[in-house]
C-alpha cells in the first residue's frame, strides 16, 4: 500500500473506515493516560499548579506548526505530483491547524495572567504564533472564497508554500523586533532542562495530541471527499434538469419535478 494506491478516493475511504476506530481508541487511551499523569505531576516550586497548563499548551503549540508542515507537503503534492487527495488533505488540515493555534494562544494567555500579570504581552513568541493564526484564517478565507475546489486548491497551495518559506523569516524578525523594544524582560519557558516528572507526561500528551490530529484530519478528509461527491451529484442533477427543460419547452415543469422525484 503506497501513496499512489490511495489516489483512488474509494480505496482511501475504505481504508480509513477500517483505521479510524483504532486511531480514535488509541487517542482516547493516550489522552486519558497523559491527563492522569499530568494531574499527578508535582507542582512547580515557583509557578504552583499553573505549570500544569503547560501539558496542554505545549502540544497545541507544537501542532500549530506541525499542521502547517503537513499542509506544505500536501501543497507540494497538489502542485508537483498532482495527487488527487493532496488538496483534500490541505483543505481539511487548515481549520484543525487554526484550532490548535487558537488553543495554544488561549492556554498561553490563561497561563500568562497569573504568571506575567497580563493576558497579552507583545512577546516575540506570542506575536509570531498570532501571525501564524492570522495566516491560517487567511488560508481558510481563500478556500471559502472560490467555488471551484480544484482552482482554489492550486491558489491555496502556492500560498501555503510561500507561507512555509516566510514563517521562519517572520519568526526571526519578530524576535529581533521584540529584543529591540524590551530586552529580556519576560521569563522563558524550557530554558532549563525539564525534570523527568514533567517530561514524561509532556511527551505522552504530545503523542496523544498528534494522534488526535491524525484522527481528526482523516475524518475531515472523509467528510471533504463525501462533500465533493454530493456537490458533483447536485451539479449533475441541475444540468440534467436544465437539459430536459431545454428539450421539452412545453412540459418543462413536469420534467423538472419528475427529475427531482427520481433523484
Amino acid at each position: 500500500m503506497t501513496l499512489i494506491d490511495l489516489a483512488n478516493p474509494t480505496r482511501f475511504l475504505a481504508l480509513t473506515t477500517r483505521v479510524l476506530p483504532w486511531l480514535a481508541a488509541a487517542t482516547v487511551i493516550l489522552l486519558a493516560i497523559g491527563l492522569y499523569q499530568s494531574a499527578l505531576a508535582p507542582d512547580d516550586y515557583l509557578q504552583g499548579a499553573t505549570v500544569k497548563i503547560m501539558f496542554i499548551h505545549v502540544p497545541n503549540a507544537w501542532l500549530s506548526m506541525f499542521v502547517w508542515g503537513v499542509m506544505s507537503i500536501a501543497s507540494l503534492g497538489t502542485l508537483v505530483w498532482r495527487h488527487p487527495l493532496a488538496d483534500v488533505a490541505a483543505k481539511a488540515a487548515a481549520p484543525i491547524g487554526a484550532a490548535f493555534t487558537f488553543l495554544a494562544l488561549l492556554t498561553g494567555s490563561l497561563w500568562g495572567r497569573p504568571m506575567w500579570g497580563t493576558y497579552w504581552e507583545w512577546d516575540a513568541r506570542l506575536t509570531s504564533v498570532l501571525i501564524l493564526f492570522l495566516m491560517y484564517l487567511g488560508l481558510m478565507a481563500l478556500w471559502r472564497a472560490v467555488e471551484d475546489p480544484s482552482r482554489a486548491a492550486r491558489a491555496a497551495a502556492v500560498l501555503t508554500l510561500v507561507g512555509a518559506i516566510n514563517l521562519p523569516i517572520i519568526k526571526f524578525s519578530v524576535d529581533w523586533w521584540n529584543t529591540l523594544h524590551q530586552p529580556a524582560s519576560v521569563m522563558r519557558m524550557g530554558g532549563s532542562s525539564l525534570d523527568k516528572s514533567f517530561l514524561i507526561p509532556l511527551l505522552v500528551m504530545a503523542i496523544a495530541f498528534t494522534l488526535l490530529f491524525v484522527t481528526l484530519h482523516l475524518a475531515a478528509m472523509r467528510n471533504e471527499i463525501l462533500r465533493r461527491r454530493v456537490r458533483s451529484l447536485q451539479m449533475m442533477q441541475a444540468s440534467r434538469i436544465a437539459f430536459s427543460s431545454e428539450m421539452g419547452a412545453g412540459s418543462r415543469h413536469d420534467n423538472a419535478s419528475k427529475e427531482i422525484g427520481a433523484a
Partner: protein
Amino acid sequence: MTALSALIRRDIRIALRVGGGALIGVLFFLTVVVLMPFAVGPDLALLSRLGPAILWLGALLASLLTLDRLFMADHEDGSLDLITMSRTPLELACAAKALAHWLAAGLPLIVATPVLGLLLNLDMVATGAVALTLLAGTPALTFTGMIGAALAVTLHRGGLLMAVLVLPLSIPVLIFGVAASQAVIVGPMSFGAPFSILCALSLVSLVIGPFAAAASLRHGLD
C-alpha cells in the same frame, strides 16, 4: 532581453497615462499621512516620534492598494494570455512587470516622502533615513505583493481577501524598515544591521516572488 525591456516600457507607459492610476497611490499615501494627526492629535513632538512608522504604514498600504492592477488589466484585455504563451519565461515576464510597477508606483512614493516628512515634523536626517529605507524596502513589498496579485487574477477575487493574505507576509519588511529608520533618529542601535537585513529581504523576495506568481498564473489561468 528586448522583449523584457519592451514589456517594462509598455507597462510604465500604461501606468502613467490616463486610466493607469499609478499616481493615485501617491495621493492615497498623502491622504493617509494627513489623516494621522487627526487620529493622534496635532502634537508635533509625538508626530515626529511616530513619523517613520506612519510613513512606512502609509507606503505599505499605498503599494498594496495599487497592486491588484498589476495583472488585472492585462487579463481583461487578453494580453496576459499572450505573455503566458510567449517564448519569454513567465518568471522573467513576471519580474519585469513587477519592476515596471515598482518604477511607476513605488518610486513616486519615495519621491513624495520628503514632503510628507515635513508635515510630520521630521528633520532632514530622519527624512533621508526613511526615504532610504523605503527605497530598499518597497521592492520587497511589490515582489511579495505580486504573489497576491497573481492569485487575485486567477481567482477573480481582489480587494480585502488579497490584503488579508499578503499583509502578514510583509511584517518582516515593516519591522526592519521602521527599525532602521528609528536607529537613525533615536536609537543607540546601528543603522547598518537592520538596513542590510532589509536589503536581504528585498533580494529574497526578488527571487521567490516571480516564481510563486508565475506558478499561480500557470496553474490558475485556463
